[in-house]
């Protein structure tokens, strides 16, 4: 019998939607033109790009001229933070972000610190939420940018983005949000949120890899990240990846059209998985916020076991997930997000993220709920930490 394969790592990447692939196909061989060319081939490609830009703009409630395509979500994040920092350094050198951002933001901020900028990394509460009051207090007269992610990639916690947007507006500070994980799982409207810049990525929403977009509100002072030709209205050079841009446009369109249905389906699968695990396995901790979390995110710590051993055991029975354990990252420290919400190192090492997507079914959830408990039990039987706590209260 063929081994069952269950993919619950949709926050890492998703399969492309067949309709996305279908729309992309003509732009590899048939309509291969360079959108900068004035001849027919070029105009055809330009038209496809315009349509994609309109779809992305519509999906975010933005104007088409406020959407710029990038090579990835990471590039969009880099551009937003570095671009605003360098363009506004005469005004100030202070940036505010959080301790739980994606590395695309954190490492960019660390780089800017080495360039003379000052960065405040806000703490989060035990659920991973930023306190807007803390944020407001951190603003000073040199603050030029606030960058707070919309929803966290590891624990799925959704930030009070609208509230932060109001504070940013009141204090006249640019506000960027990394919406890579939120897109497709949360309703996004840039005006309602009060953001000046917003990053998204194609492959997290059943679009192609190697494509992202940055929303830049009209009038935002931002330097270029990539210099060269006149593409993207002279803001982001490099011949456009037309097929990927087309795919991104379609992916955003589908994500927005199917949002309610998707969120409904994901929430039901997510809750079945969360409740099922809590009923079947003792000494577990749900990481992230109980309600303010992405509809597709499940993140647990299993006390006394290590995440990589858990992942490998799951992989052996065909279940693909991810972990915040150090052993999966090549470093010795576990996930910065799990440490920031106050988890001990050993609890952080025992984390497991299962991120759901359109390809998942109720049968997948049942399969996980059958396979996971004996795996945790086996690893606990091997663990010297387990015996010490057996019978006693779990150290959670």
């Amino acid at each position: 019998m063929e081994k069952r394969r269950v993919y619950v790592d949709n926050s890492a990447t998703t399969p492309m939607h067949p309709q996305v692939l279908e729309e992309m196909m003509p732009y590899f061989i048939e309509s291969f033109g360079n959108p900068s060319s004035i001849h027919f081939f070029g105009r055809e490609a330009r038209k496809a790009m315009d349509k994609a830009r309109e779809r992305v703009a519509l999906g975010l409630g933005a104007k088409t001229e406020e959407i710029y395509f990038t090579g990835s979500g990471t590039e969009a994040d880099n551009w937003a933070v570095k671009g605003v920092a360098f363009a506004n350094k005469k005004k100030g050198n202070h940036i505010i972000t959080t301790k739980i951002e994606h590395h695309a933001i954190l490492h960019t901020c660390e780089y800017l610190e080495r360039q003379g900028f000052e960065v405040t990394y806000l703490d989060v509460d035990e659920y991973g939420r930023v306190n807007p009051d803390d944020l407001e207090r951190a603003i000073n007269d040199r603050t030029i940018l606030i960058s707070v992610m919309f929803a966290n990639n590891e624990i799925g916690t959704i930030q009070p983005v609208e509230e932060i947007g109001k504070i940013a507006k009141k204090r006249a500070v640019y506000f960027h949000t990394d919406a890579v994980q939120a897109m497709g799982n949360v309703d996004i409207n840039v005006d309602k949120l009060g953001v000046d810049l917003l990053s998204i990525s194609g492959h997290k929403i059943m679009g192609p890899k190697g494509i992202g977009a940055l929303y830049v509100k009209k009038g935002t002072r931002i330097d270029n990240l990539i210099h060269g030709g006149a593409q993207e209205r002279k803001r982001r050079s490099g011949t456009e990846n037309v097929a990927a841009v087309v795919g991104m446009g379609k992916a955003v369109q589908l994500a927005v059209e199917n949002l309610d249905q998707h969120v409904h389906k994901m929430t039901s699968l997510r809750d079945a998985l969360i409740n099922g695990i809590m009923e079947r396995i003792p000494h577990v901790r749900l990481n992230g916020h109980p309600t303010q979390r992405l509809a597709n995110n499940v993140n647990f710590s299993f006390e006394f076991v290590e995440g990589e051993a858990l992942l490998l055991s799951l992989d052996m029975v065909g279940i693909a997930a991810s972990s915040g354990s150090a052993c999966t990252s090549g470093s010795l420290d576990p996930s910065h997000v799990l440490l920031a919400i106050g988890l001990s190192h050993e609890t952080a090492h025992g984390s497991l993220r299962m991120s759901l997507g359109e390809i998942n079914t109720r049968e997948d959830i049942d399969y996980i709920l059958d396979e996971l408990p004996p795996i945790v039990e086996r690893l606990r039987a091997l663990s010297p930490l387990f015996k010490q706590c057996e019978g006693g209260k779990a150290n959670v």
Partner: protein
Amino acid sequence: MYNETVIEHFTNPRNVGEIEDADGVGEVGSPQCGDIMKIFLKVEDNIIKDIKFKTFGCASAIASSSIMTEMVKGRTLEEALALTNKDVVDALGGLPPAKVHCSVLAEQAIRAAIEDYRSKKKEARNSG
């Protein structure tokens, strides 16, 4: 990422458990690093008669513990002390570079257990 030997030892680890009246116990590693290895020994006539382990850690830490116990069981304490982490890596047919520290833990664990045995023996002699 892991070879078949590592996977085999991870899936079917040898000598798992604890020895109630162990002659020597060694525990190394820390929860901070995500690896803890605990070794229990029974020693008779300078020979490791029985050995059991419990490990909190990744697959390579579990596999390193398992193969190490196989390698030292039935050996003299001197032979066991001569075991290096490289011997463990070689016996496993190699570990990914980021995982070599797991084999170091196995080497340290058996040494800690033997040291514990020797210090207990010394104490017993002194008090007796």
